[in-house]
């Protein structure tokens, strides 16, 4: 181990080209962080399968180590700087300019930290029912993929990590899942694989077609591709955007590509569900932000109304279908469809508040839905069911459990003071600026969220417990310790999201400025009190139809008013 790190450091050339900041750790932070769980997976693979405790320990330790390095990154992160930090790179395939460039900005920082927190917690929260060796190996490998995706700054490496996440989750669902696990796993795999095929084609064609402006050499370096993507024609870049978007829409998931999610969630083991909802869905929205908005500003503007519409549909539709579910895991899965609809909507609002809210919503959804799945795991441990019809009066026999569930539920509903509200509000307020009627419609989602969660809560927790539920024990100390960090984060981020927002904002601003510069359009913003022109059109000419809120003429007027 001790000789490995310096050797490894030699391979990776550490740069912080955008900030000039040096980490001062003596080793490249991000590569080591990504490799921690990989090392864990390898060690687990080498261990004999009878040593269950050692295997579990290795899994937990390696993910805790990655999480700790994520926290180090958070602590050392320069808040005001918009660019990538902790950048390190190693050449992989020189002729194609494929490099292991890893770096994070304010957007990926918290997704990395979230991954680092959620994986160890999910490992501690549940145990596999059989074959622990494979289970822990796949889980740690899954973490490698997730961390890699958020750190990668090379299109090809991004794709590689994106794909790495597939197999472990497929195995986790297919082998350690419940009921119709094979069906669910196969559906998940085929669905996402199909999306990835589109993405591979898109990435490759992008690299080839964009090379013309970069001295004729192919490069997968994200920064270089961003610089040269202007060479693509409008139609070409829109087509490539669609190719990327299909993969991200499946992953997020965006209506109508969502039906794999309820099946995957329902059948997955607890840790699988936690990380699937908490981290893997963000691969989609993160991809949209980093590889959609940044790479294809014009196409993003062009498709923004479509994406916002799909986001709004997801919010309402996901909520309604969630309300009709009889299985708690399916219910939370559909609620994820609704919550991720907010993320998509905020991103394509293309306002600073909307995009920032979207990134925050990604983190918050990871925490609350992760916590919900952990709690459902606790419930399953006690009752061996997720069916609402079989649960009743749990609050009477397990008041602490019910109390924790209530807090998480209220956060998920979006009650202010808890984390879920902040992101949702920013998304909606940001969307209102650009596409106001969609924001008005999507806000109905907050009513539906209360409907399905409170209804489910009433059926499972209220009432007089019947025979089967009368002996359900309350949370033990171990369980309390596992869930406590998430509850603390739920409250903290609801009351004081400033540290997070302060770090997200410069990065988001940078993306939006890039969109503005490369499209030559002024993005909408609030009017800052200078011009209180009519909100609802009354013949002054400044009003514009809702779906085309990005009409350049009208936006230029706002911009003038701002100055």
């Amino acid at each position, binding site marked *: 181990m001790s000789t490995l790190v310096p050797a490894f450091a030699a391979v990776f050339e550490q740069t912080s080209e955008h900030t000039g900041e040096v980490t001062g750790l003596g080793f490249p932070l991000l590569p080591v962080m990504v490799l921690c769980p990989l090392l864990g997976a390898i060690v687990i693979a080498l261990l004999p399968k009878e040593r269950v405790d050692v295997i579990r320990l290795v899994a937990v330790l390696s993910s805790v180590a990655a999480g700790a390095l994520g926290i180090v990154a958070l602590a050392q992160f320069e808040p005001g700087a918009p660019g990538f930090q902790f950048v390190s790179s190693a050449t992989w395939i020189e002729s194609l300019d494929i490099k292991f460039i890893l770096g994070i900005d304010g957007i990926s920082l918290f997704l990395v930290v979230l991954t680092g927190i959620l994986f160890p917690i999910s490992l501690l929260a549940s145990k596999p029912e059989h074959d622990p060796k494979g289970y822990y190996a796949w889980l740690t490998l899954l973490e490698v993929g997730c961390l890699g995706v958020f750190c990668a700054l090379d299109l090809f490496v991004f794709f590689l990590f994106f794909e790495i996440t597939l197999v472990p989750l497929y195995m986790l669902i297919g082998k350690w899942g419940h009921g119709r696990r094979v069906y669910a796993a196969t559906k998940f795999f085929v669905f996402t694989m199909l999306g990835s095929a589109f993405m591979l084609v898109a990435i490759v064609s992008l690299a080839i077609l964009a090379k013309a402006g970069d001295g004729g050499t192919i490069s997968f370096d994200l920064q270089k591709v961003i610089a040269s993507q202007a060479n693509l024609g409008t139609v070409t870049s829109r087509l490539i955007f669609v190719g990327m978007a299909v993969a991200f829409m499946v992953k997020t998931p965006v209506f109508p590509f969502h039906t794999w999610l309820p099946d995957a969630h329902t059948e997955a083991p607890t840790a699988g569900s936690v990380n699937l909802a908490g981290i893997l869905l963000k691969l989609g929205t993160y991809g949209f932000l980093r590889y959609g908005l940044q790479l294809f500003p014009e196409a993003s503007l062009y498709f923004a109304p479509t994406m916002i519409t799909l986001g709004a549909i997801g919010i309402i539709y996901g909520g309604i279908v969630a309300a009709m579910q009889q299985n708690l895991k399916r219910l939370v899965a559909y609620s994820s469809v609704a919550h991720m609809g907010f993320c998509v909507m905020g991103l394509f609002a293309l306002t600073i508040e909307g995009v920032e809210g979207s990134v925050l919503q990604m983190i918050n959804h990871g925490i609350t839905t992760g916590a919900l799945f952990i709690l459902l795991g606790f419930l399953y441990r006690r009752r061996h069911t997720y069916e609402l019809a079989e649960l009743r009066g749990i609050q009477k026999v397990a008041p602490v459990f019910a109390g924790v569930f209530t807090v998480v539920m209220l956060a998920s509903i979006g009650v202010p003071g808890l984390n879920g509200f902040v992101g949702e509000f920013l998304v909606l*307020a940001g969307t209102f600026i650009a596409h106001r009627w969609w924001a008005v419609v999507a806000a109905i989602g907050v009513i539906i969220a209360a409907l399905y969660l409170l209804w489910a809560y009433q059926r499972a927790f209220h009432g007089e417990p019947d025979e089967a539920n009368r002996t359900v024990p309350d949370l033990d100390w171990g369980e309390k310790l596992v869930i406590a960090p998430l509850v603390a984060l739920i409250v903290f981020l609801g009351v004081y999201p400033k540290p997070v927002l302060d770090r997200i904002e410069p990065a988001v601003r940078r993306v939006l400025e890039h969109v503005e510069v490369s499209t030559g359009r002024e993005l909408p913003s609030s009017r800052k009190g200078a011009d209180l022109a009519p909100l609802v059109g009354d013949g002054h000419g400044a009003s514009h139809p809702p779906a085309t809120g990005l009409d350049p003429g009208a936006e230029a007027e706002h911009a003038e008013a701002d100055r």
Partner: protein
Amino acid sequence: MVDIIWLVPALPLLGFLLLVFFGKRIGEPLAGWLATLMVGGSFVVAVAVFFGLLDQPEHTYEQVLFTWIPAGDLHVEVGFLVDPLSMAMTLFITFVASLIHLYSIGYMHGDERFPTFFTYLNLFVFSMLVLVLGNNMLLTFLGWEGVGACSYFLISFWFTKEANASAGKKAFITNRIGDWGFMVAMFATFFAFGTLDYTKVMGQAGGLAKTTATFIALMLFVGAVGKSAQIPLYVWLPDAMAGPTPVSALIHAATMVTAGVYLMTRANPIIAASDGYVGWTIAGVGAATAFVAATIGMAQHDIKKVLAYSTVSQLGYMFLAVGSGAYVAAIFHMITHAFFKACLFLGSGSVIHGMVGEQDMRLMGALRKYMPITAGTFIVAWLAIAGVFPLSGFWSKDEIIEFAWHKSPVLGVIGFVTAVLTAYYMSRLVFLTFYGEPRWGEHAVREVVQVGGAGSEEEATTEPTESVELVNGLPLTSERKPVVDAHFHPHESGWTMTLPLVVLALLSVIGGVINLPGSHLLANWLEPVVAAGESHLEPTATYILIFSVISTALALGGIGLAYFVWLKGSRQLQRGFEPVFLEKAWYYDLTLAAFMGGPGRRLFEAISWFDRTVIDGIVNGVGAATLGVGKKVRRLQNGYVRSYALLVVIGVVLITAFVLTRMLQLS
């Protein structure tokens, strides 16, 4: 002294945190005393702040604690705006809340979740104070949702009963419809002003385009309609009576439900800048709610249901005032109403406590002989709400009707008619509960049920919805056992319960002094806040006198009618004054429930079916057709999972390698 304002919400918050973590260990009754102490301390601090505020320029002071949400142009702080409006609200909230905390120590005695009750109660007071003290709309919204959540917890406090759990859920979801309006109003406000701070927004509201102002005002009103239980969203409040009675007094009468009135008063510059029909809408909804709820209150049997509809009706008066530009009158009535309605609710709680849980007035009677303090205070509060000169309700209600008459005589007439109805149904309640002969015991119950007619029984069996006539959560059928038998002797409650009653009764008498015609203390105090929207009347002494005479005559008329029907009349006559249409609350709730359970639910089911069959069907169809998933799945179940996955991985690697080599050639 004003800079200690943060302590006002901080004390109940501290109480909440202590009780969350140590409530079980603190136990009964200490948990109750701790909670009461915190809220009482909060009141004392509020009084100190009040005296400090007198020295502040324009009686306004703003304290910023920290930045809450900084994102782009949106910059929201956690800060408190202490101005005449929020000060007045803070004083009466902390005061009434202290008394109700004290009362609850006696009322909740013996409940196994005694500390939990006070945990919620302290959290509620904290949220309510944040609501009124917040210096921006978003912080108000935080309090707004906080009180909603506490209301949910407390309505379903006895959650093992299905009806209580449903009532809590119904309250939260109905309120959320209003919250949607509030949220949209905030989006629009942020869009138009780039900020949500009250001082900036209300300061610039005059320059707002009319359409923008109208949109914001209407959306805020949607929020207020939800929280303050106005037509069409009032249905949650009567059901909310499922909660413990102190909750009904504090949350569903005195404080939370008045939040909508507070919000509209706070936003009066926006309403003033909006189109004229906004004021008419608000006044119309208020007047209609006042009237409809009063008619329903005439025919209810559950003592708390009468008071609940009465609250809805009185809130209607407040919105009638707001719509008529009488913001001061609205706040005036809010405060006097808090006194007498809290007194009435706590009194009804004392009655229910004394009757060991009985809530059906048909099974009470003559209680003034057994519960003299409860009866005495209740009678005082009754006269106050009935508008008898010179009690507090007389002054505040009269002021509203004067302004309403000024806006339109039609609104004024509705105000007067509702005043008669109010005097009538409150007198009915008092006569049934405290006068006449005792009617408890098995024999009496059977008689009541028989006279009650087959109608209610029939529906109880055919429609087991929660809105069917329920007494104590049970349909009133002949099989129903009375709570107490004929030999039962109701008892007076202990001092922790009677002391708040006495104080509140006293205030119901003298509460009017804060804004008597001629003195206008409250009007002068609130003047800086409501200057933009307040309409002005300069009534002559004769004008006031005529109004006073009319309304006193009407109040006495209502009381007199009730006297002849409910004290002197026969049971048959009485039954004639309880038409089923009113007893069933105009069938509104039943229709709504039928719709939600019928077409509404079917729509949801249809969408769910669409997802399962159409969307997922296409997915599976495509999958089966192109990939032969079905066949493979069968093989996989035979243990080939790993090999299949391996194949896929190999496939991916091969494709990747192929693409890479192709590209190497290209480059």
